[in-house]
C-alpha cells in the first residue's frame, strides 16, 4: 500500500514539475522568438516580391500578428493547450502532424543508436574497469576521450567520405532514393540509410556510458564487499559475474535514460549531415527558414522527450534497486 502511494506522490510531483517547466519554456521560447528579427510574414511568403504590402498586411491580420505580444502569447498558449499547435510554414501542414511523422523517423535512428551505445559502452566500460591500468583499459579510455572531443557532425562527414564515397558501401545521403515514392521504399533501402547515421550517433554516445561504467567498476572492485568476496575465495571471474556486472548495470541504465538530451542534440547534427528526414533536420530547417510555429512545437516536444527520460531513470531506481524497493515495503 505504502509503496503505491509513494510512487503516486512521486509521479504527481514529477507531473507538476513538468507542467511548470512546460509553461516556463513556452514563455521563454516566445520571448526569444519575439526578440528575433525574423518577420513571420516574410518567412511564410518567402523572399518573393510578388506579394504586395497589402497582402502582407492581410496575412499579418489573419494571424493576429499586429496585436500586442502578451495577447498573442495567450492566444498561442491557449491553442497549444487545446491541441492546436498551428501550421508549419515550410511544410504547410499542422505542426503536430509534421512533428509526429518526423519524430517517428528520428525515433528509429535514436533507438538504434541508444541501444547500441548503451550495450557497447557498458561492455567496454566493464572491460576497461576490470583491466584498470592495463593496455586494453588505456585503449578504451583513449577512444572515449577522443570521441568526447569529436563533434558528431564531423564524425558523420568522415564516415560519409570513407564508407559512402571511398568505399561505396552506403548511400551518400537522403533517406529515400530520389524519384521513389515513400511507400515503395524497401526495408533494405531504409536500413541502408539508417546504418551510417545511427552508427555515428551511437559511437558518440558510447564515451559517456563507458567512462562512467569504468569508474563504477573500479569503485566496486575496491569496495569492501569485493574484498570480502575475494577473502571467501571467489575468483576474479566470479566476482565480475556475480557482483560487478549487477552493481554497475543499475547506474549505467539510469545514465542511459538521462542521456536523452544529448541523444536529441546529436540527432540534430547527424540528421543534418546525412540529410536524414527526421525531427533534427526539421529543427534546423525551421530555425533557418523562420518556421516559428514548428520550432516552438519542437522545443515543447524535446522537453517532454528529455523529461520522460529523466523520469524513467528515477522510476527505474525505485523499481529495480532492492534497497529502495524493499525499503518502501518494510
Amino acid at each position, binding site marked *: 500500500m505504502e509503496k503505491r502511494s509513494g510512487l503516486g506522490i512521486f509521479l504527481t510531483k514529477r507531473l507538476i514539475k513538468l507542467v511548470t517547466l512546460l509553461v516556463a519554456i513556452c514563455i521563454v521560447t516566445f520571448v526569444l522568438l519575439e526578440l528575433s528579427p525574423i518577420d513571420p510574414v516574410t518567412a511564410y511568403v518567402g523572399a518573393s516580391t510578388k506579394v504586395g504590402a497589402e497582402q502582407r498586411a492581410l496575412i499579418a491580420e489573419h494571424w493576429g500578428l499586429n496585436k500586442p505580444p502578451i495577447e498573442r502569447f495567450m492566444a498561442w498558449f491557449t491553442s497549444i493547450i487545446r491541441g492546436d499547435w498551428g501550421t508549419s510554414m515550410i511544410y504547410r501542414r499542422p505542426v503536430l502532424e509534421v512533428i509526429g511523422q518526423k519524430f517517428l523517423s528520428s525515433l528509429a535512428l535514436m533507438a538504434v543508436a541508444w541501444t547500441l551505445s548503451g550495450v557497447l559502452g557498458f561492455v567496454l566500460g566493464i572491460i576497461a574497469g576490470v583491466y584498470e591500468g592495463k593496455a586494453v583499459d588505456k585503449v578504451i579510455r583513449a577512444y572515449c576521450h577522443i570521441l568526447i572531443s569529436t*563533434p558528431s557532425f564531423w564524425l558523420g562527414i568522415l564516415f560519409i567520405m570513407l564508407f559512402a564515397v571511398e568505399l561505396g558501401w552506403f548511400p551518400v545521403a537522403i533517406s529515400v532514393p530520389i524519384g521513389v515514392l515513400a511507400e515503395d521504399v524497401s526495408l533494405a533501402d531504409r536500413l541502408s540509410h539508417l546504418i551510417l547515421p545511427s552508427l555515428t550517433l551511437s559511437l558518440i554516445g558510447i564515451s559517456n556510458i563507458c567512462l562512467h561504467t569504468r569508474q563504477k567498476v573500479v569503485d566496486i572492485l575496491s569496495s569492501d564487499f569485493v574484498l570480502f568476496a575475494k577473502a571467501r575465495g571467489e575468483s576474479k571471474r566470479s566476482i565480475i559475474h556475480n557482483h560487478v556486472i549487477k552493481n554497475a548495470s543499475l547506474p549505467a541504465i539510469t545514465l542511459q535514460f538521462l542521456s536523452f538530451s544529448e541523444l536529441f542534440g546529436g540527432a540534430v547534427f547527424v540528421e543534418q549531415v546525412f540529410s536524414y528526414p527526421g525531427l533534427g533536420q526539421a529543427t534546423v530547417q525551421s530555425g533557418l527558414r523562420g518556421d516559428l510555429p514548428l520550432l516552438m512545437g519542437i522545443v515543447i516536444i524535446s522537453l517532454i522527450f528529455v523529461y520522460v527520460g529523466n523520469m524513467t531513470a528515477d522510476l527505474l531506481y525505485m523499481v529495480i534497486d532492492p534497497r529502495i524497493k524493499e525499503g518502501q515495503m518494510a
Partner: protein
Amino acid sequence: MMEQVERIQVPQGPLFKFGVREKAIIAIGLFATVFIVILIAGSLIPEDSLDVDLYNIFASPSLAHPFGTDWVGTDMLLRTITGLYLSMKIGIFCAVTSAIIAVLLGIAGPIFGGKIDYVISWLVDLVLSVPHTLVIILVSIACGGGLTGIVIGVTVTHWTSLTRVIRAEVMQVKEMEYTKISRKFGKSKLFIAREHVFPHVIPQLVVGTVLIFPHAILHEASITFLGFGLPPHEPAIGVILSESMKYLTSGKWWLAFFPGASLVLVSMMVENIGRNIEKIINQKTAYM
C-alpha cells in the same frame, strides 16, 4: 629458534616511480604551451595571407600546403589556425562567463537559501530540460545570428553543471565549524561567502572552467556548421566544415579532415589539462 631473515617475498617496485602527479604536471605544461602557441600564431597571421590563389585551387596536402588548399586556393593550414584562434577566443570567453555565473549562483543558492536557492535550482533544471543544441539555436535566432548569439547561447547552456558542483561544495562548507562560528559572530552573508566559501571552491572552479572550454568550442563549431552561428565570411572552423560538405562526394577529404581533426585535438588537449589539474587537486591520487 626464531630466525630473523629479512626475505622479500613480493618484489619491491623501483625506488623512484614516475607517478601520477609528475605525469600530470608534464602534460599540463606541454598542452598549455601548444595552446598558447596556437593562440599566438593565430593572432600573427595577417589577413592578406588568406588570399585567393586561383592557380592553386584544391591542392591536396603537400609540403607547401600541409593541409591542402580550398576552392579559391587559400592555404587550409592558415585557414584552420585562424579558425582555431577565433574558436578559442570564443571558447575562453564563454568558459569564463559561464564560470562567473556558476560561481555566483552556486554560492548564492546555499548561502541565501530558501526561495533564492529554489529558484536557482529550478533555473538549472529549466536549462537542462531542453537539449543544449536547441537552446543555442533559439538564442541565436533571438539575437539574429552572429557572434553575439553564439556567445550568449553557449554561455547560457554551459553554466549549469558547474553551478551544481559548486552548490554541492558550498553546502558542505556551510556546515563546517568555521563558517558556523563566523555566522554566530554576526558576520554578514556576503562576508562569509567571500572569506570562507569562495576560497574553498577555487579548485573546483578552476577545473570546472577549464572543462567548460572544450564543450564551448565544440558547440560553437557545431552550431556554426548548422548555419546559426558565425556568418559564412568569418574564418571559423564551423564555416570551413560546412563549406566542405559541398565537396564531400568529390574526394576532397582534406577540406574536412584537417580542420576538424585540429578542433578535436585542441578540445582534447584542454580536456586533458582539466583532468590533470583535477588529479593533482584530488587527494585520492596521493596514494597512487
